[in-house]
């Protein structure tokens, strides 16, 4: 069934179709409408779910964790300050290997205070051990959330998943979204209970762990996160069998075959970059695009494979790791390390909602082509559009 939905509505429908059993969330702009929509589903009886009306984002994730440990499928929504406030709980959820799914409606972190989009909130949580997926449009928000439950709950993974989309650009902008049938989703996403806190099988969870065990747990956790990249490909393929929509695995290339300069982006910039690539191709430029769908685990092998034939790479970062540059650029450089002389040009742009249009991306492309032609060494990173 096709409907005109904004990103938040798409996320809420995904939660309904996934038959989430516990929703624990605290209202935050611009994510709050997801919570309102789901509580509306609960009120009208189209979703059987217990809503825990927590007093903070910290408690939201704590409650979702408790619910998942007690065997329920749990969901929540947050962003920005709320995500930062959850930080220590994020580590508990991943360390305990609990498949909580969270929609993150990306928004800039204060100070200065901002209500507008960028990826700084989720990039700040890069080390927390969650799978981090980015979506370029509202259909992908719905589809990725459904895939997130299956991915996180997979026996080989058993990890929490964040599904990212941008505030306002996606959360409040309507697009046509195709909703799969409930029955089909139920087959794709069967409810399997694996309670950790179970009176019939009592376990002590998160006991004090000394040096003789801690690092081994961490090895297993990291190995599981790495496996998530492989399982994502399987899940995407299975989902394509259900709906005909295949968002690919960790990365997807666009017009890469003979591309000389490849733009690399995550989130809503991907759609803009696709149009920019078409515009550049129309005037004879050998432009290409690499969409990074999976930020954690970072798919370095897939990135290397996709970019092997390129002359240069342009990282478009809607985030700044202060004093270090863009997170995507850093990952690309690390992932491409050893690949001869592949230069990575790094641009910081669009922070706090600063608009980035097709012309901005074609302009960046031309700047890079000139620098490449002049044989200059790429700067560690540069700001665009100040």
């Amino acid at each position, binding site marked *: 069934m096709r409907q005109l939905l904004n990103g938040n509505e798409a996320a809420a429908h995904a939660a309904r179709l996934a038959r989430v059993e516990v929703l624990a969330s605290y209202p935050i702009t611009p994510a709050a409408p997801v919570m309102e929509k789901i509580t509306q589903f609960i009120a009208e009886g189209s979703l059987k779910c217990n809503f825990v009306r927590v007093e*903070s984002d910290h408690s939201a994730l704590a409650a979702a964790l*408790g619910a998942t440990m*007690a065997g329920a499928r749990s969901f929540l929504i947050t962003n920005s300050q709320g995500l930062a406030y959850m930080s220590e709980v994020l580590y508990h959820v991943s360390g305990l290997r609990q498949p909580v799914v969270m929609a993150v409606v990306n928004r800039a972190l204060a100070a200065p205070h901002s209500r507008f989009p960028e990826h700084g909130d989720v990039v700040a949580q890069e080390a927390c051990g969650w799978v981090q997926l980015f979506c370029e449009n509202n259909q992908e928000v719905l589809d990725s959330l459904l895939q997130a439950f299956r991915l996180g709950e997979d026996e080989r993974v058993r990890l929490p998943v964040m599904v990212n989309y941008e505030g306002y650009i996606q959360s409040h902008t309507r697009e046509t979204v195709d909703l799969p049938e409930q029955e089909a989703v139920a087959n794709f996403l069967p409810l399997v209970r694996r309670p950790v806190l179970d*009176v019939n099988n009592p*376990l002590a969870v998160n006991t004090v762990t000394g040096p003789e065990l801690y690092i081994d747990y961490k090895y297993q956790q990291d190995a599981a996160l790495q496996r998530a990249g492989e399982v994502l490909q399987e899940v995407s393929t299975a989902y394509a069998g259900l709906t005909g929509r295949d968002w690919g695995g960790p990365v997807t290339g666009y017009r890469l075959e003979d591309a000389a300069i490849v733009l690399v982006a995550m989130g809503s910039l991907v759609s803009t970059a696709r149009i920019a690539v078409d515009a550049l191709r129309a005037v004879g430029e050998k432009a290409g695009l690499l969409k990074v769908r999976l930020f954690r685990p970072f798919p370095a092998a897939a990135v290397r494979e996709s970019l092997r034939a390129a002359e240069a790479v342009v990282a478009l970062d809607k985030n700044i790791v202060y004093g270090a540059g863009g997170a995507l650029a850093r990952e690309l450089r690390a992932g491409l390390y050893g690949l001869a002389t592949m230069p990575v040009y790094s641009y910081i742009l669009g922070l706090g909602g600063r608009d980035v249009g097709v012309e901005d991306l074609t302009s960046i492309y031309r700047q890079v082509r000139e620098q490449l032609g002049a044989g200059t060494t790429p700067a560690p990173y540069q700001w665009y559009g100040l």
Partner: protein
Amino acid sequence: MELINSLADVPETELFTGGHGGCRGCGAALAVRQAMKALGPRTIITIPASCMATIGGSGLSTAWEIPFYHSLFECAPAVASGIRAALDIQGIKDVNVVSWAGDAGTADIGFQSLTGAAERQENIIHVCYDNETYMNTGGQAGSITPYLAVTPDTPGGKPTPRKDMLAIMAAHHPAYLATASVAYPLDLIQKFQKAGEIQGFRYIHILAPCFKGWGIREDQTVQLARLAVECGLWQLYEEIDGRRRVTVIPERRIPVREYLRLQGRFKTMDEAAIAALQAEVDRRFQEVQS
């Protein structure tokens, strides 16, 4: 419900067993052991950062015979809320869900999630085992550390009075509220029995001395807990739907001086301060007992 009326009738089964990592004379371990006698095996407990979160297990060993989760400091009542929501959606009705925190996990760093859960009238039991200091990190002062108590970070005595946590929790109108003491095990066990029968948010505050923090000998834990009741500083009562019932009337009233002078932490209190505290205790005793 048949209340356990003699120590001989207390179930022998231990759900918090021997071999735990608590100090000899640990008031917190006593409180848990007694409470578990009433709560029984169909209980899920979550305990935030505290001595109690660590002494029940280490590495691959545990003293717990029930599901136990060592949660983050701020959020045991929120975790318990999530557990309850999950059990409800699965139709599991006969499990006690308990968040069990120290004074910091209840009144200070954990207060936000506690007041949230209490306001929502979550169907959980929150327990505060109160040793009146941040004992897991060496005994620093917190908001319900008594006035003038000497701690590592209040070496001249704590400059502010203890926050009235019971009044704060009573203001949430819980379904059940009680005070308890490790020196009165039958009273404590009966209160957990009642709490287990009642639906809604339940709050039990247990005075559980820590010999180290209090500057007493390890064999004086129960003695001091009893003296706290006998001097009237710690009164044992319960409130159901806001109606208070005193459950233990001390057989003899002793001056607070006798209680204070046994402890190292009140060594800087002078007679004037003790007299002022005595007056306050007398006033409060009248108020509660009447």
